[in-house]
C-alpha cells in the first residue's frame, strides 16, 4: 500500500477519534451530580476554596472550552487527578495497564491456538464426531455468560480440585522485580522458574474465560472458511498435480483459509477489552478493567472518563489495524 493511501486512511480516523472523545466528554459532563461536591465530600470548605477548586478543575469555563481543554490535555496524556488515589490519573492507569494487556494477550493466544486447529480439523473431517462436538462447543462458547463460566472454572479447579489458585495475579511468596510489567516475561527473564509457573497458574483460568467467546467464533470462522477453500478449484488443481496431502493443506488451503480468521481475530480483539472488566472482577485480577468498575462505585469520574477514552481509542486503532492487516494479507486487494 502506498504511503499516500496509508496517510489518507489515517486521516479518516481523526474525525472518528474526535467523535469518540466528544461522546466520552459528553458522558461525563452530563453526569448528574457536581464533581466538586463529590471531591469535597464531608469536609467543610469555605466558598472561596470551593470556587478556587472549581477554577482549578476548569469547571467554571463554558462547555466548548472545556471540551477543547479535555482533548488537548488528553493528547498530552494529562487526565487530571484521581479523586481516590490523589495521583495523576494517567499514572494510575499506566500502573494497571500491563496486567490487563498481559491477560488479553494470553487470552488471544489461547483462543488462536485452540480455534485454528479445531476449525481446520472440523472442516477436514466434516460431519464426523469431532466436527459435531466442535459445533456444539462453539455454540456453547457464545452462549455461556463469561462471569458464570469463570466462577464455574474457579469452583472446579480452585475450590474442588485445588490445582489452581483462586484469584490474583501471583502468589505472595513469589518476589519479582518487574522489568516489562508482564509477569510471565519478567519471571523468565530473571530465570525464576517457580515464579513463572506461579504466574502461569494464576493467569490460565482468567485467560480461558476471557478467550472463550473469541475461541468459539474463530473456530466457526476457520471451519467455514476452510470448507469454502477446500471446495475451490485451485485445491482440486493442486491435488491433480499429485502434491502430498500436507502440501495441499498447508500451502494451498490454509494460507487462504486463514485470512478471514485473522481478520475476525483482529476485530474481536477489541471485544476482549470489554470482557476483561468482567473477568478481572471475577478473578480479582489487578488490571485496568477492575479499576474502572471500582472507580464507578467510588464515583471517581476522572479515572472512569480517562479509562473509557483509552478503551475507545484503543478499540478504534485495533479496528484500523485489522483493516490494514486484511488488506495486506489479501494479494488481490490492491490499494
Amino acid at each position, binding site marked *: 500500500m502506498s504511503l499516500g493511501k496509508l496517510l489518507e486512511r489515517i486521516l479518516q480516523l481523526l474525525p472518528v477519534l474526535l467523535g469518540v472523545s466528544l461522546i466520552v466528554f459528553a458522558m461525563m459532563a452530563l453526569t448528574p451530580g457536581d464533581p466538586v461536591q463529590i471531591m469535597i465530600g464531608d469536609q467543610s470548605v469555605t466558598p472561596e476554596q470551593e470556587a478556587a477548586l472549581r477554577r482549578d478543575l476548569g469547571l467554571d469555563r463554558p462547555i466548548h472550552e472545556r471540551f477543547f481543554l479535555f482533548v488537548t490535555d488528553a493528547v498530552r496524556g494529562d487526565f487530571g487527578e484521581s479523586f481516590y488515589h490523589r495521583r495523576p490519573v494517567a499514572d494510575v492507569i499506566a500502573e494497571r495497564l500491563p496486567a490487563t494487556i498481559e491477560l488479553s494477550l494470553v487470552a488471544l493466544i489461547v483462543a488462536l491456538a485452540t480455534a485454528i486447529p479445531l476449525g481446520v480439523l472440523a472442516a477436514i473431517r466434516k460431519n464426523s464426531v469431532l466436527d459435531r462436538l466442535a459445533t456444539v462447543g462453539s455454540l456453547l462458547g457464545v452462549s455461556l455468560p463469561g462471569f458464570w463460566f469463570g466462577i464455574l472454572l474457579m469452583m472446579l479447579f480452585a475450590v474442588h480440585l485445588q490445582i489452581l489458585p483462586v484469584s490474583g495475579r501471583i502468589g505472595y511468596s513469589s518476589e519479582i522485580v518487574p522489568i516489562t510489567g508482564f509477569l510471565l516475561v519478567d519471571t523468565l527473564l530473571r530465570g525464576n522458574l517457580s515464579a513463572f509457573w506461579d504466574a502461569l497458574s494464576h493467569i490460565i483460568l482468567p485467560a480461558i474465560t476471557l478467550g472463550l467467546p473469541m475461541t468459539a467464533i474463530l473456530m466457526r470462522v476457520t471451519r467455514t472458511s476452510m470448507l469454502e477453500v477446500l471446495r475451490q478449484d485451485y485445491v482440486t488443481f493442486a491435488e*491433480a498435480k*499429485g502434491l502430498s496431502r500436507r502440501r495441499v493443506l498447508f500451502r494451498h488451503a490454509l494460507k*487462504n483459509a486463514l485470512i478471514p480468521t485473522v481478520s475476525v481475530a483482529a476485530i474481536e480483539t477489541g471485544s476482549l477489552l470489554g470482557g476483561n472488566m468482567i473477568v478481572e472482577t471475577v478473578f480479582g485480577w489487578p488490571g485496568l478493567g477492575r479499576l474502572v468498575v471500582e472507580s464507578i462505585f467510588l464515583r471517581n469520574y476522572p479515572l472512569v472518563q480517562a479509562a473509557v477514552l483509552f478503551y475507545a481509542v484503543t478499540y478504534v486503532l485495533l479496528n484500523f489495524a485489522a483493516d490494514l492487516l486484511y488488506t495486506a494479507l489479501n494479494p*488481490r486487494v490492491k490499494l
Partner: protein
Amino acid sequence: MSQPLLDVRGLRTVFETRAGTVCAVDGVDVSVQRGECLGIVGESGSGKSVTFASVMGLVKSPGRIEAGTILLDGCDLRGLTPKQMRAVRGKDIAMTMQDALTALNPALTVGEQIAEVFDAHDDTLPRRGAARARAIRDKSAEMLGLVGIPSAESRLRQYPHEFSGGMRQRIMIAIALACRPKLLIADEPTTALDVTIQAQVLELITEIRARLGMSVVLITHDLGVVAEHCDRVMVMYAGQVVEEGPTAEVIAQPQHPYTRGLLASIPRPALRGQPIQPIEGQVPDLIGLPPQCRFYSRCPLHRDACLAPVAMRSAGPNRRVRCILSGEPVE
C-alpha cells in the same frame, strides 16, 4: 491394435445426495491410444468431466467410484494406494481445468505453482540446496517459454491475477506438462476464453502433443473444436457414451439421434437461411433413471422397443453407437 494407453471399462461413479443417488457415470468405456487426441463431447450433466475426475482419482465424498477398471499403461489405477496415486497424478496423467483464474492459487506466485510439480515428481533434480532451487527455477522458466510466455524468468515471480486470461490458460498447461505426462486431460480448455485466444491455446496443445508424443483428451461441448483437433470423438449423454468413432466419420455420418441433433443445432455457413433446430426437451433427472434409452423423451425416432436398456452396438470398424436403430449388437 496395440494396448491403449488408457483403458477404462464399465466405469460407474455415483453421488449420494439428500434427494437420492445420482449416477453421474454409468457403465462408461473409454480407451485412449498413444499419441492420439480423443474428443469428449456432451452437455452439462453428461458425465464427461466426472469420468475423467474418476480416472484421476479426484472424486470425493459424497461421490465414489462404484465399479469399473481403470488401466493406465496396464497399471490398475483403482488398486493403487493414495500415495501411489499421487505419484501418478501430475507425472503420468495431468489435467487442466476450465477456468484458469480459479484453478491457480491467487496467493502463490506462478513460479511457485510450477515449481511444486517438479518438486513433487522430478527425481532428476539435485537433492537439495541452492542447486535444486536453481534447477527448478530454470525448468519452470523453460516451461513458461514452451507455452509461449515471453520474459519467462521475470514472470515467474508474478501472481496469477497479473496475467491475462489466455496467458493463465497457458500457465495451467505449462504446469500440467511440466513432467511430460503421457496423458493430458484438458477439461473445457477453451470455454472461458474468447475466440482468438481459443485458437491459440488449441494450437499450442496440438503442437506440444506432436512434439512430446503425448495423448490428449479434450473435454468440450464445442463440436467445432473437436472437428478440428481430435482424431476420435466420443459423445456422452446422461452418464453414458452414446456414440464414438473417428471424428470425420462421426461428423459426416452421425448414427445416434442425439449426435445428429447436436450437429444440426450448430450454425454453419452451408445452412445459411435455414432455421437452427435445437434439440427439444431437457436432460433427464439423473436420480432414479428408468432402465431404457435415456434419450427417449427427446428423440424424434423413438419407439416402444426403446423402452428397454440399450447396449453399445458396433456400427463399423472403430465405430460404436448406443441406439437400436443403428449398427449390429456386439457379442
